[in-house]
């Protein structure tokens, strides 16, 4: 059955119908936007935690570490409750609050899942730098921003790993996106939720086709980031 399903899966991929293209597009859109926002929030927070001392820092780090191991399905439940009509955000009826069963809700859940990983690994990368480096950069005439940028560049391998970890946590995620997205065809169906659905229907060839595409996307994204990391390592 496996071999037959695999051949059929490859045929389906080569045919590439509109529904399949739509599922891929939704997946890429949700993961891409989530990762960009999680990185935009997580990298500066990681740098801040790595460099600054303040009261309550240990608590913030403990919360961040907890977030790194948070089960996605619990995040899904949390976002579901927040966005449901009777939930604290859903009640507002604001156009800024995404509706349940929309890509906006899925993006919100995936940001919450990936953000602690990006921030935590970035913090670790910055903490790995020599504690006197910032002073040395200032001593060479760097402004605060110039010193910060240089330190980010110095920690670039670790920061890339942070982004890769964030990407890995959401590209294969199914529980949260299923709960808050609803797996609606042509709207919120992603590669992972479609795989679950097709498997339940017994459409193993389609499920396998989707799985292969997911693997390919994951491989291409990681290879691209690894290439960047490799350049940094070579310098």
């Amino acid at each position, binding site marked *: 059955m496996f071999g037959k399903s695999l051949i059929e899966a490859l045929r389906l991929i080569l045919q590439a119908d509109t529904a399949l293209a739509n599922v891929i597009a939704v997946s890429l859109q949700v993961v891409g936007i989530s990762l960009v926002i999680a990185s935009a929030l997580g990298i500066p927070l990681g740098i801040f935690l790595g460099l600054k001392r303040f009261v309550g820092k240990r608590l913030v780090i403990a919360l961040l570490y907890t977030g790194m191991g948070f089960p996605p399905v619990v995040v899904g439940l949390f976002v579901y409750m927040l966005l449901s009509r009777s939930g604290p955000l859903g009640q507002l009826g604001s156009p800024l609050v995404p509706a349940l069963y929309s890509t906006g809700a899925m993006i919100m859940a995936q940001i919450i899942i990936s953000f602690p990983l990006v921030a935590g690994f970035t913090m670790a990368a910055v903490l790995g730098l020599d504690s006197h480096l910032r002073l040395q950069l*200032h001593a*060479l005439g760097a402004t605060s921003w110039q010193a910060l940028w240089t330190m980010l560049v110095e920690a670039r391998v670790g920061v890339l790993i942070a982004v890769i970890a964030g990407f890995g946590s959401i590209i294969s995620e199914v529980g949260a996106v299923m709960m808050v997205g609803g797996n609606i065809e042509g709207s919120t169906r992603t590669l992972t939720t479609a795989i679950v659905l097709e498997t339940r229907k017994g459409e193993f060839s389609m499920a396998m086709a989707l799985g292969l595409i997911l693997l390919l996307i994951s491989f291409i994204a990681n290879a691209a980031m690894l290439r960047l990391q490799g350049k940094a390592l070579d310098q």
Partner: protein
Amino acid sequence: MSELLYRATNLTKRYEERTVVDVASLEIERGEILALVGPSGAGKSTLLRLLALLEAPTSGSLQFQGVEVAMGGARPSLAMRRQLTMVFQRPLLLNRNVTANIEYGLRLRGLKAKERVAQVLEQLGLTDLARANARNLSGGEAQRVSLARAMVLETPILLLDEPTANLDPYNVSLIENAIRSINQQRAATVVIVTHNVFQARRLAHRTALLLDGHLVETLPTEAFFNAPDDARTAAFVRGDMVY
């Protein structure tokens, strides 16, 4: 008449409950080489960071070019900070090649000075290593790159924290010659922290002894070694245990 560059009065630096620097009076003139000597933990590096305007004193007065920069005074401006460069004890090089490391401070200032970079590479015997990654250098090479990165900026003040610690005689001689040339050719002021009293004797116009954060005395180098006023200085110069 010589120009006063720094004037420190009752200058202290505390970390939590520990007073690391407590200097009653110190004056540094433009164009001199001042050596700060003393045992480990005497507060030499902390005093150097205060002079580099990298840390704020806890109390007292620190005037830099007549401007008060200690508590209650002006926050050191970028223009003020860019008149001086400090080289840390550990090289702290960036993960790039030697030339890029040396150009770093110039780039911060929006300057390109290829000739100056080439000249400094030559002066410190680094020309062959220009394209090498700074992470792959030996201790002596890294220390020379660290000094070159500061020298290329041609700031009027250079603050050096143990620039030759753990180096072989060849590298020590190369770095000392470079320091002399900076002082003689550009009349740059150099404050050097060193464990090595012989190095202080070879390089400095004046030498100061720091013990437990206190400045014991500051004298012209010859007097410091031959006729110190304080018995602790005499004991330190002789190599006796004074701490």
